[in-house]
């Protein structure tokens, strides 16, 4: 009853092809944005913002990046962590060399570096398909991880091997480094993630999204339509890595405040991949759902049981977390291979006819 479309007539093709043709969806998004921009910063605790919201947004962005490549274009990638790392380190080097330039410019620029690396490791995708391509991305992952650890140039020859984020400002307000407040950083991350999600949405709803999905579904038929495979795949690598690179830069500069090279290892790649699988391959909203579940679950596991009087040791939490994530993946694949996004869609379908059963 709430979600009925009756009465919403589309009188032009452009209205029909709008990204959110249903009024209730548009209202819903507006509400979510309002909550994100106003309610949470005002009412939310520092903990909520620093430990939950900021990383959730950043991981969602990385998940969107991987989803564009794996979910929309069908190119399985296990190198997400490395591409995020490229973005983080690029940003670090750029701001070290040009400290006067606004850090946000460098965050976006580092995306381009990531994109370039992504394209480089995507070139094999012309000849190598499917699962073998995943191994090529693993090569990228291990090689770049090794670079971050072994080549001191990356961390400015710092003795500890880690990088520390210097203070940078935007319009006089510090947004990175020790003096930046949670709220400031939250707003910056929110703005960037919202903007980039909007751009990704535009892409996937238009010609380019269709080309990617065609390559995913049947590349032979796609060629027949006139789609050139290599440029299309490389574009997917480029855009995907751009998003991951920016996410990596945000991760280090606007969340952690520093990084050890081990942050961008193969486990991070799997982490993001699980978000995409559980959230739903080929769905932008799914990326957010998946990030929420995979990221928030360990937090829940860590803090809820003590409230019920069942203390769990810290080390055990990690083990249980792994078990739960592993089991969840299998359960999801059995119950709904298209992930949370599909469950959400089914839910909306039911809302359309509620309270009637069909």
């Amino acid at each position, binding site marked *: 009853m709430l979600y009925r479309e009756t009465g919403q007539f589309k009188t032009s093709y452009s209205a029909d092809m709008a990204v959110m043709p249903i009024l209730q969806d548009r209202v819903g998004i507006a509400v979510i944005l309002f909550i994100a921009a106003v309610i949470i910063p005002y009412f939310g605790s520092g903990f909520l913002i620093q430990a939950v919201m900021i990383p959730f947004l950043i991981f969602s962005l990385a998940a969107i990046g991987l989803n564009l490549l794996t979910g929309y274009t069908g190119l*399985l990638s296990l190198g997400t962590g490395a591409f995020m790392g490229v973005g983080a380190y690029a940003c670090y080097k750029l701001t070290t060399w040009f400290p006067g330039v606004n850090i946000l410019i460098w965050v976006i620029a580092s995306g381009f570096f990531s994109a370039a690396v992504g394209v480089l490791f995507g070139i*094999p995708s012309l*000849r*190598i*398909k*499917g*699962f*073998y391509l995943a*191994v*090529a991305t*693993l*090569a990228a992952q*291990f*090689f770049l*991880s*090794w670079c971050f*650890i*072994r*080549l001191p140039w990356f961390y400015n020859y710092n003795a500890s091997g880690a990088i520390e984020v210097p203070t940078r400002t935007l319009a006089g307000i510090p947004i990175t480094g020790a003096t930046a407040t949670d709220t400031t950083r939250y707003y910056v991350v929110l703005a960037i993630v919202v903007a980039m999600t909007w751009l990704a949405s535009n892409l996937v709803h238009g010609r380019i999204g269709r080309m990617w999905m065609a390559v995913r579904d049947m590349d*032979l038929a796609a060629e027949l339509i006139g789609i050139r495979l290599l440029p299309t795949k490389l574009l997917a690598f480029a855009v995907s890595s751009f998003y991951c690179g920016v996410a990596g830069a945000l991760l280090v500069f606007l969340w952690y405040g520093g990084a050890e090279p081990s942050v961008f290892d*193969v486990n991070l790649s*799997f982490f993001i*991949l*699980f978000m995409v*699988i559980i959230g739903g391959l080929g769905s932008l909203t799914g990326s957010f759902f998946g990030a929420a579940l995979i990221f928030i679950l360990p937090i829940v596991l860590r803090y809820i049981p003590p409230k019920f009087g069942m203390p769990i040791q810290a*080390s*055990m939490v*990690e*083990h*249980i*977390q*792994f*078990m*739960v*994530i*592993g*089991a*969840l*993946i*299998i359960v999801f*694949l*059995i119950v709904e*291979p298209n992930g949370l996004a599909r469950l959400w869609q089914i839910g909306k379908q039911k809302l359309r006819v509620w309270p009637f059963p069909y």
Partner: protein
Amino acid sequence: MDTLYKIFIDPFMQMGAAPDLLVQTLWEGLVAGVLYALIALGFVLIFKASGIFNFAQGIMVVFAALTLVGLYEHGVPAYVALGLTIAVMFGLAVAVERLMLRPLVNQPDIILFMATFGLTYFLIGFGELVFGGEPKIMIAEQLGLPRGAIDIKMAGGFVALQKIDIAAAIIASIMVTALALFFQKTRIGRALRAVADSHKAALSVGISLEQIWVIVWFAAGLVALTTGIMWGARSQVSFALEIIALKALPVLILGGFTSIPGAIIGGVIIGVGEKLGEFYWGPLLGSGIESWLAYVIALIFLLFRPQGLFGERLIERI
């Protein structure tokens, strides 16, 4: 110019200057290769019989080894522990078939592949929970595996061949031959190949998919156990082994996903290539290049032969 010399000439000169070191390195590469091949073998078994790439093979190796050592540490005699571990691996195969394979029976391969990710993470968590995360020592001696080394004098120096390595090579060869014969000659082996080709067709001739899968995952479990014992005897049993299992991927790329002899050949190429690369070219680039060298070797091969050395070239019929 100097760099070119360092990359293309110097390592070979070093090889020539100390041939005993070269033989030692080659031997170590061979042994490592045999062990990689064992891991790859587990993948090949499952892939050959079900078309699934079992990402969890690596963790099964660790899990099997941990179970064995764990039981022994609780006072169970070595051979009894071995028997019990075999039973546990059988139980695991049954559980996987019931809870994971059966519900997903008609799904595309990529879904099953992702399910094995889930299985991996589950087993990692479970293993750490039950056995603890610290490295353990494999009960090699108690199982009757030899210790010590044989020293061979050659080319002006010594080459030390660890007896355990020789044992590993021999055991691996026996295992490979046995499995190859099993697949080719026995009725069950034929059934396994039929299932790998087409589930529906196999069902229609009366092959029980569930039984086949249990058999195959159990066989992979046995291979995992053997691998775990051998790897563990040479170094330690820890979860780091799981990452080493990822090394099997380049091996599979070279050797093909369905070829048992290919797994050995691929393993040896990767093992030897890695050791040589690490020993002679490693100092140029910094240590630890073995973390990615195997992948790059495999990648280069893939560019020339996208189906791997032994893989079947897929002729897509439209």
